């Protein structure tokens, strides 16, 4: 079976600096694949190329076997690639429900409809409310997205992604900036998604990564130096030397 996401020889340079150096990996259907690496390893550049906000110099990205390397971010999203952002990205002036209903709207029929009131389209609202509830935000439907707490905004991003019914979900440091209680709730949420979606997770919290991931890829200076199960990665001498060795208890 073709993998959900397939990355082949992805290369990107900023002037002389190779930020992505021939990166290749596969994400199987239903797999949670984490990508870790020290600061400056090129994780953010990688996720920008996967989501389509940055074009690679060389290499290919396949979503469910289809080449999406040259597609815009919006076109990738319509084909089933959802992402959350490292820095929270929501529609602050709209309600939580409207944020999610727009994601439903994007995949259900034309949006060049001018007269019928969208707030009365129960098909959109019902699916949006369902996604909000799945992300632990039941009851927050009518709150303005800008007034949600940081952790709730993180949950809202996941609700938006769920409402897209994606094939692959890119989570870019979903725990960044969250407090202890908030991150525990988010971890539960991500753990609950495991197996239902194919997920690429970029995250600094090693404890979380090793607890959640089916497989882990280690990125150092733009190269993937290892890919394997959490146990294999923990035991990998090269990884320990390059990255984990200096982190106590990792």
């Amino acid at each position: 079976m073709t993998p959900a996401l397939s990355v082949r020889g992805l290369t990107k340079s900023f002037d002389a600096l190779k930020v992505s150096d021939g990166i290749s990996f596969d994400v199987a259907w239903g797999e949670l694949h984490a990508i870790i690496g020290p600061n400056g390893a090129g994780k953010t550049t990688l996720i920008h190329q996967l989501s389509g906000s940055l074009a690679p110099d060389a290499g290919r990205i396949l979503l469910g076997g289809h080449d999406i390397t040259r597609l815009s971010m919006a076109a990738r999203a319509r084909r089933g690639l959802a992402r959350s952002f490292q820095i929270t990205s929501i529609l602050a002036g709209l309600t939580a429900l409207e944020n999610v209903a727009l994601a439903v709207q994007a995949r259900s029929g034309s949006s060049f409809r001018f007269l019928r009131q969208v707030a009365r389209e129960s098909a959109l609202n019902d699916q949006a409310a369902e996604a909000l509830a799945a992300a632990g935000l039941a009851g927050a439907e009518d709150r303005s997205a800008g007034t949600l707490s940081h952790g709730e905004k993180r949950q809202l991003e996941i609700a938006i992604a769920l409402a897209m019914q994606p094939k692959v979900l890119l989570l870019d440091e979903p725990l960044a900036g969250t407090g202890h209680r908030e991150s525990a709730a988010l971890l539960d949420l991500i753990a609950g998604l495991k197996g239902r979606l194919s997920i690429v997770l970029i995250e600094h919290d090693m404890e979380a990564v090793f607890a959640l991931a089916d497989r882990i890829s280690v990125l150092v200076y733009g190269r993937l130096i290892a890919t394997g199960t959490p146990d294999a990665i923990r035991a990998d001498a090269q990884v320990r030397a390059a990255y984990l060795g200096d982190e106590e208890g990792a």
Partner: protein
Amino acid sequence: MRLSDRAMLVTFAVLLPMPALFSAMGEPFLTVVLTRALIFAIAALSLDLILGFGAMVSFGHAAYLGIGAYAAGILAANGVTGLEVQLPVALAAAGAFALVTGAISLRTRGVHFIMITLAFGQMAYFLMSSLSAYGGDDGMALAGRSTLFGADPFGSSLRFFYVTLALLAGIWALLRAVTRSRFGRVLTGTRENETRMQAIGFSPFGYRLTAYAISGMIASVAGVLLANHAAFVSPSYMGWARSGEMIAMVVLGGMGTLTGPVLGAIAFILSEEALARLTTHWRLPFGAAVVLAVLFTRGGLLGALRGRR
């Protein structure tokens, strides 16, 4: 009902008996002034669709006012006075101009968008200035009032007022529906966060361009009315100063509310008129008043109403 809608219904209710009140006061000319304010209210409403709901600050919106005015003026000069021809021509010309210039302008953002819309507006201005067959720089008197299937909708200042008020109400209702539709929600979304909209699968360009064209077409309706109101057509309708005034009306009233631009345009035209009667140097206090109003009423006049609740 939302505050914005209630304020609009109250505004319509207040406007309705105004001509009778003015003639009772012995000041029937005020009906003519108020009609002019309502024409600009239509123009400001159209601008608010892109400015308030789409975050596209067009500094060339007066061009569409001019396109509507010249559609009426040029057709009338050639013996075609029927609105049944003039309005479709104005809408088509404005729509075409908006699609072509919008397709170019909307590749840019922020200050660049302001500058490029300004440039297109000035191009339209100079084009009409050089059109010597139709008055060139000096403009031209409207050869004949517009008619509608033989009827004379602008025949008296009273009739003109109510025709304009009805058009304003219709356009307000239309834009209210559009801004609450699927399309309107996408447009608002691109205002809030373009990257987020792309990440859920929307390419903003087509939605922005469509809004830009709708906006320009509605402004051209105000242009047709303005030509009849002044019985004159001139390139000065299209100048950048006029575009700036239209932005001021929208911001003064409250962007992104639909009711705001209507209130803003009425306040703008009426205080302009009042100050001009008091002093020939009215522009100075008027400028100061606009600055103060924007500074101290966050969200414009409608925002001031909202704040007091």
